[in-house]
């Protein structure tokens, strides 16, 4: 594991305040989702999940068709559709457009896709003021940090830390009441919205046949970003497509419930272009940038293509016992939790942050709640296999590979296997039934040392099962 990830994990595990914040906020979201499923009728909810998976499967298997269809429909309504093979192309385009329009101030609403390509940082570097407007993202941007959860970016900060932050960065009185802090942010950002030249949002769904850009939110900043500035830019991954409005209904029913237990988020916007003749307000120009950035590579892998079904609800994060301990910052990329663990190696290579696919007990809680039924545990297993194949190719992890080879050989030779119990008795000494707090020094290595760092070892029994069985049956095999 990279030193920075290990440090981050250790720091997070050692911080009781952070542990409490992560565990309780994810716990709340778990309970809210559970209640929402009960309220909607679990059998119905299960049907929606099945439908959603089928729709995504179909769409991705025919993605070129739907991309062209979407482009056709949106273009007919006045949207300028662009295609970017990577983040660089997106950034270049936005900067060029900003210069062309003499734009100085950009407001943007929450979008994981834009975080993936570090859009805000690049725009700031180019001398533009690019402001996150989602409250949690705004706070995290002021703090110069990374968001720690897909749905609750500032989950890791306390009101006191936020009070200090606003005082230092906005020059306001130190305020620690969340309602008042929210008002400060509302006031500050309202001015920005009204003065902004360009608004940037992501898209939760792109409905191909209907020609719709769908943005869901609870705060209202996406509506403001897409309604006030003269120019609205939508940046969305190519996997966001679904075919029809009827499909949208299925996904809208799943998204809010899975993320926060809400049947619908506060605002669901169905956008299809710039302001039309007769309409009073709305942007004069709308751009949609369709982003690849490696998605086509995942698309090519039949077994793991389902990773692209993700609708970014965050349910897998909330239910993951690993995430609930190590938090979002322990993951190396903007996507954290189980979905992050499966897509990071696919986008960046399986040996880059090689620990990620192994940072799971394969408990399956994620797959149980994923609204589009991505088989995350199976993909983790496949990635572990690819990791081993890569280690073979690179001739690394030789000890581990050798150990498993020996292990398999022993397991295929029962008589040799029976001798193994003699070995384990030899390396441990135990008095009575006491579990072992330590082992003799030469054996306190590798897995044994790692086990003992957290818990005691079971003492090897005086006799193995097969020895006892022979005695029980009056000696002799079955």
């Amino acid at each position, binding site marked *: 594991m990279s030193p920075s990830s290990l440090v981050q994990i250790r720091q997070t595990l050692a911080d009781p305040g952070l542990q409490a914040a992560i565990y309780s906020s994810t716990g709340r979201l778990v309970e809210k989702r559970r209640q929402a499923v009960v309220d909607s009728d679990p059998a119905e909810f299960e049907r929606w999940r099945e439908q959603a998976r089928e729709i995504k499967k179909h769409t991705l298997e025919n993605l070129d068709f739907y991309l062209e269809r979407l482009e056709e429909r949106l273009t007919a309504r006045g949207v300028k559709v662009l295609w970017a093979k990577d983040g660089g192309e997106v950034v270049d385009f936005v900067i060029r457009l900003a210069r062309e329009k003499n734009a100085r101030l950009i407001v943007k609403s929450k979008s994981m896709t834009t975080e993936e390509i570090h859009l805000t940082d690049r725009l700031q570097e180019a001398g533009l003021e690019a402001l996150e407007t989602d409250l949690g993202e705004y706070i995290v941007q002021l703090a110069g940090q990374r968001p720690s959860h897909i749905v609750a970016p500032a989950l890791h900060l306390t009101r006191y830390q936020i009070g200090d932050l606003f005082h230092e960065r906005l020059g306001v009185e130190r305020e620690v009441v969340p309602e008042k802090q929210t008002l400060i942010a509302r006031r500050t950002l309202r001015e920005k919205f009204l003065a902004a030249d360009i608004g940037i949002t992501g898209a939760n769904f792109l409905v191909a046949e209907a020609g719709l850009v769908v943005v869901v939110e609870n705060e209202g900043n996406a509506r403001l970003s897409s309604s006030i500035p003269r120019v609205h830019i939508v940046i969305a991954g190519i996997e966001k497509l679904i075919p029809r409005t009827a499909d949208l209904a299925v996904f809208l029913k799943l998204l809010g419930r899975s993320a926060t237990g809400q049947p619908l988020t506060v605002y669901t916007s169905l956008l299809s272009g710039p302001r039309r003749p007769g309409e009073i307000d709305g942007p004069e120009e709308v751009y949609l940038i369709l982003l690849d950035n490696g998605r086509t590579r995942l698309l090519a892998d039949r077994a793991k293509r389902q990773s692209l079904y993700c609708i970014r609800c965050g349910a897998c994060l909330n239910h993951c016992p690993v995430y609930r301990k190590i938090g979002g910052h322990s993951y190396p990329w903007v996507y954290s939790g189980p979905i992050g663990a499966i897509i990071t190696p696919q986008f960046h290579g399986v040996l880059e942050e090689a620990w990620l696919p192994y940072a799971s007990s394969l408990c*399956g809680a994620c797959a149980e709640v994923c609204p589009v039924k991505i088989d995350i545990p199976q993909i983790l297993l496949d990635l*572990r296999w690819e990791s081993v194949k890569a280690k073979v190719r690179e001739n690394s992890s030789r000890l581990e590979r050798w150990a498993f080879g020996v292990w398999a050989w022993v397991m*295929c030779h029962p008589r040799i296997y029976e001798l193994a119990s003699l070995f384990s008795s030899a390396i441990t000494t135990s008095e009575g039934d006491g*579990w072992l707090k330590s082992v003799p020094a030469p054996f306190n290595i590798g897995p044994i040392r790692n086990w003992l760092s957290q*818990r005691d070892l079971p003492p090897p*029994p005086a006799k193995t*099962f097969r020895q006892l*069985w022979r005695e029980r049956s009056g000696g002799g095999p079955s």
Partner: protein
Amino acid sequence: MSVRVSLFVTCIVDQLFPKIGLAMADVLERVGCRVDFPEDQTCCGQPAYNSGYRREAAQVARHFLRVFENADYVVVPSGSCTSMITHHYEDLFRKDPEWAERARRLAPRVWEFSQFLLEVLKIDDVGAHLKKVVTYHDSCHALRELKIHDGPRRLLQRVRGLELREMDTAGECCGFGGTFSVKLPEISGAMLQVKLASILRTGAEAVVSVDASCLMQIRGALSRAGVPVQTLHLAEVLASRERN
């Protein structure tokens, strides 16, 4: 007509917790099964499979199939080993149709212990007595892959003298996850502490599960913390005839 059952005790029970295997055999015989123990058995291959070592896992899986494929029933005191065989062997042999077929043919006859009692033998009362307050831990593979949830609780309800208290995180992972427990020990340990706190909140004297690996993880923490709470496999509870 008595049912012939072949025991697959699992490597962890064989090597570290033999009493669990004996308890399971006792219960099965008590309810009228003829029990045998194929001596060539070793492991189901899960440790290698979960670590990405498919070739090694397949070797061990083929050995398993050779040993057991002629059994009437194979009964296993472990949810994770059972699901390895019944749910993952097909994936393991995805490029090997002959072995995939052999795995498919055996799978319907391989049963986790509690499911065997309830769904094959159709009994929920094995005449057990144990005066104890216990809490039940849902091991992940049992819960999510084999849908084992109500079954063990039903069996425990029928144990005379036993009081079952639910912990508030029964369905959350204990943090074992096979090699996960030693590859990422700090995370495994942190998850384990959550489970420990939940167990202590019930005031139970023992934790019961259908997986010895979970019990090993949990007991390891109880021992380290010096807490006198026991761990018992479901088989050990059902085999018990203690009266007070």
